[in-house]
């Protein structure tokens, strides 16, 4: 990336994060919803860990922490997609395109925003989870592996949402960005390990790439041996696929004049 493109990406990233942290209507829901989901799942469903065959080595709080971490990271990406749609709806996107010699730098800037939002949520969520008794069996390298998977999910969801936002250039496309991510994240081993799933969800989860990511992240946090190649392969594959989707969306936005 050239120095000029780096400068554009950093400017877009700074602007997005500045807007995010200065607007309580964006910060508060972003912070509260993962914490609420975590409280509801870890607090209300902990008896599920007594089901015969539930073999996760740490407590149910840890089990649900991983799911909420991945979910919240993905939604950090989706909500950054909302910001892209708003920018292009209001004409800011068009002006940014005029100022950026390499327009891919704009996407890189939004990726910085998404990652910054995810980092903020990770800190809050991890602090709460540790405060309420989350057990951590993995070491520093394992945890780094888990957070890296969460970051890949964050960027993948951003690229998906950016592709939609750049094609529609309107906030009205919000449900289209949000609903598929919500569904695909839930069609995975959310409440119980994969082996305890039944019916159509088990079939769907077995071909859902998010399943590999969540299961590996749970192995990381508990210190068990994770299927690293499958998880990172699935995450990187999704990122590349949706990265191309976002770049094509960028080309469509350019063709439409922003």
């Amino acid at each position, binding site marked *: 990336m050239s120095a000029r493109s780096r400068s554009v990406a950093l400017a877009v990233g700074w602007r997005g994060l500045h807007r995010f942290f200065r607007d309580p209507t964006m910060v508060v829901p972003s912070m509260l919803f993962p914490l609420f989901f975590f409280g509801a799942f870890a607090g*209300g469903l902990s008896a599920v860990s007594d089901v015969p065959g539930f073999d996760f080595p740490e407590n149910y709080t840890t089990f649900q922490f991983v799911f909420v971490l991945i979910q919240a990271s993905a939604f950090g990406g989706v909500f950054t997609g909302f910001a892209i749609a708003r920018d292009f709806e209001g004409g800011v996107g068009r002006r940014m395109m005029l100022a950026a010699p390499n327009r891919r730098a704009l996407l890189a800037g939004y990726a910085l925003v998404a990652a910054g939002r995810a980092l903020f949520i990770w800190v809050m969520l991890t602090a709460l989870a540790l405060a309420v008794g989350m057990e951590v069996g993995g070491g520093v390298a394992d945890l780094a592996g888990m957070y890296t998977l969460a970051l890949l999910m964050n960027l993948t969801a951003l690229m998906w949402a950016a592709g939609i936002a750049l094609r529609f250039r309107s906030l009205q496309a919000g449900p289209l960005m949000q609903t598929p991510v919500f569904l695909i994240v839930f069609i995975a081993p959310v409440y119980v390990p994969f082996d305890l799933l039944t019916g159509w969800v088990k079939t769907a989860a077995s071909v859902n790439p998010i399943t590999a990511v969540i299961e590996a992240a749970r192995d990381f946090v508990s210190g068990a041996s994770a299927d690293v190649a499958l998880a990172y392969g699935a995450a990187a594959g999704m990122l590349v696929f949706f990265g191309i989707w976002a770049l094509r969306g960028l080309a469509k936005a350019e063709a439409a004049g922003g």
Partner: protein
Amino acid sequence: MSARARTQIPELARRSLVRTARQPAQVVPAITFPLLLFAINAAGLGAAADLPDFPAPDYLTWIVAVPFLQAGLFAVAGLGADLARDIESGFLDRLALTPLSRTGLVSGQMAGTIALGLVQGLIFLVIGLAAGATFETGLPGVAVLLVLEVAIVFAFGLIGIAAAFRFGNGEAVQGLFPLLFVFLFLSTMAMPADLIEQDWFRAIAEHNPVSFIFDGIRSLFYGGWDPGALAGAFGVAAAISAVFLPLAVRALNARVVRT
């Protein structure tokens, strides 16, 4: 009901029905979203029915109650947003110039939402039974379930109406939706109170009015007739209505005075 109200309310009700029917973007998610969550939770948490002392015959029969209550949440968002649009577009201002009664205005707006609630209730029941849920109270139970569904939608719809009159914009009303979702999650939605291990969560769930509504709905699906559970469910719906109907009328009065 006065002769004037007999003329006014059906006109507003007809408008409300037509408006609801013409908004697939409102109707389709109100039916599909609860069904999707039902399908995901029924399969994802199916193993929970293996816990000792789990009260329902299977998890599907336990979780099938949830869509019936989610219909109420969609009533808040849908009805509130419709009314907020009337306020923002100036339609309410024009109505205020007519001799329309306040109560007529509030109740007439409910027709579309109640009709949608009935459709939702029937669809949720048919799909729940097709998926394999137990339903022990037969046809009388179906009738009671649909009446309870109307009571739930009416009560929650009044929250949407009161909020729309109070705030006057759709964005603020939509903001209530996640807040009400919190009430849903912090209840016996996913697990019976006796099987909730965290004391703080169990305490909230046991006193959450939403849990009483779940008890009433579930009593129709398994365990035979339970007048106490049904009284609790109808009682909560009546209490919400008793609180929010006067609030809605008061907020409407204040808005009309401002107009």
